[in-house]
């Protein structure tokens, strides 16, 4: 009886841990194996040839990969900047003493609980060149219409807009939680001291939710680095690679061109980018805290 009780908690944890090991940890290691072999969709069930670091060299020398890194930087930078700024403004407005807050937050949440597919299709629809509502409005207001999904210079901004729409509710929610954690009596004393609302926002509010801000930025940066549903569905990464971030590059290599090993190698490069970014942010979090 006694010895069974000792193992009881391990028994309860076993299913969760084993599923994580089989479907998350093992594939993670298997990725390294694939990336050092020459495997494509057609040779997957045959013998795999060991090719050292050939796949990595191919990826790093691929001009399309260089484009995809550039696209990633714009996509991640744009998405994070706009999600954060819009999120901060809306969260601060919601933090005022207003009625029906619960319902407003529920409405604001809606894009975030839809799928990436729904976000992508909705924007593909309103951005359509010939019958999309956005171009119609532009023309109605006297501007010329824009080739949102086919102009190589514009298309990355179209996927950023869709991604900002999809992702901003998370930041609003997260920063709202941060703002709620501030003790309101602090503002009272600032008011007594004669500080204006704007001043107390920059000198009181922002420093007090600093850790919320940094964690929020870490999370939305890492999601944006790895997220490719929206460009895949809106444009397929086209024209050429003009809307292909590095994460979509990985997917396209493996499942559009069938080059699994090349995809794996770029996946590992993508992972290293994740680690570097997380590391930089963690240093930022520690240094100023």
């Amino acid at each position, binding site marked *: 009886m006694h010895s069974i009780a000792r193992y009881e908690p391990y028994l309860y944890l076993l299913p969760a841990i084993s599923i994580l090991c089989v479907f998350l940890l093992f594939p993670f290691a298997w990725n390294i194996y694939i990336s050092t072999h020459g495997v494509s969709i057609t040779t997957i069930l045959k013998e795999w040839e060991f090719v050292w670091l050939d796949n990595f060299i191919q990826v790093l020398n691929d001009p399309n990969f260089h484009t995809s890194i550039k696209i990633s930087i714009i996509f991640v930078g744009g998405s994070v900047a706009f999600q954060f700024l819009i999120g901060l403004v809306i969260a601060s407005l919601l933090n005022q003493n207003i009625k029906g807050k619960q319902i407003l937050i529920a409405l*604001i949440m809606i894009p975030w609980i839809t799928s990436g597919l729904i976000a992508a299709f909705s924007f593909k629809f309103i951005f359509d060149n010939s019958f999309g509502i956005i171009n119609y409005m532009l023309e109605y207001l006297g501007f010329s219409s824009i080739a949102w999904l086919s102009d190589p210079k514009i298309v990355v901004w179209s996927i950023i807009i869709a991604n900002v729409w999809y992702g901003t509710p998370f930041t609003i*929610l997260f920063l709202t939680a941060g703002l709620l954690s501030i003790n309101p009596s602090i503002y009272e004393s600032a008011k007594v001291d004669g500080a204006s609302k704007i001043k107390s926002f920059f000198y009181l509010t922002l420093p007090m939710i600093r850790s919320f801000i940094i964690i929020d930025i870490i999370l939305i940066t890492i999601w944006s680095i790895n997220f490719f549903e929206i460009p895949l569905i809106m444009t397929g990464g086209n024209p050429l690679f003009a809307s292909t971030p590095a994460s979509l590059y990985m997917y396209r290599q493996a499942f559009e061109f069938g080059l699994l090993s090349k995809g794996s190698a770029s996946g590992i490069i993508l992972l290293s980018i994740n680690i570097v970014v997380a590391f930089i942010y963690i240093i930022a979090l520690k240094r100023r805290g």
Partner: protein
Amino acid sequence: MGKLSSNTIEKIEKSFVYIAIFTFIGLTLFPLIWVFTTSLKPNDETMSFPPKLIPEHVTLENYAFVFTDSTIVKSLYNSLIVSFGSMILNVTICALAGYALARFEFKAKRILFSLILGLFMIPVVINIIPLYSILANLGLLNSLVSLILTFQILIIPLNVILLKNYFETIPKELEESALIDGCSRIGVLRRITIPLSMPGFAVASIFSFIFSWNEFVLPIVLANSPNSTLFQVALYQFISLYRIEWGYLAAGITIALLPVIILIVAFQRQMIKGFTMGSIRG
């Protein structure tokens, strides 16, 4: 006089706050409302120019098409099986794990908890190629069971934390006194712990359902044969197979949106609390 004017300023300020929030909500909901009204338009109106928000003739023909297309109906059916299956499996294993972490003191507790959280730092998309390769070599591609199992990696960490926190709010003493009164361990779970944890189970279930229902990358890679397609993937294949029929697609998107909207309207308070607590998304 001075008091009155500061009151007026406050009123003006407040109306600006409301205007800004409502404008934002309007912009946010606009694309979805546009898709919804499109789903009610007859086909010749969908691509008419200038586009109209309100359909001239309301019709359900797009929904009729979606519900008679055998591939889409099959995929809807598959999505329901996978979402409910994944939900039941997930809540079961996360409840066990959460209970162990909340109620027991044991040597490897910290390490195992950090392992669950740490593994979650691996981005799931990095795993799609090896998962594809492993399942292909085992002959397990295009199987709904494989999908249910792989979907677990999206939701285990979030729901383990959620349920662990929930169990911790139930006083240990309640269970202990029942044990002393001669209740068996299983009896305690059945009569006390499980009934008291129902709200926690509800939120965890909603999360796993929504994650599974919305997931697109794993099913498009691991299951794209006609028999195993999920609803989101079927909608995607819709555009690659035919010329885009926006009316049908809009109806499909509305159907995909429906369960999630219903869930958030019904459980907004609990979900927002849970989202903030876990603050994680795959």
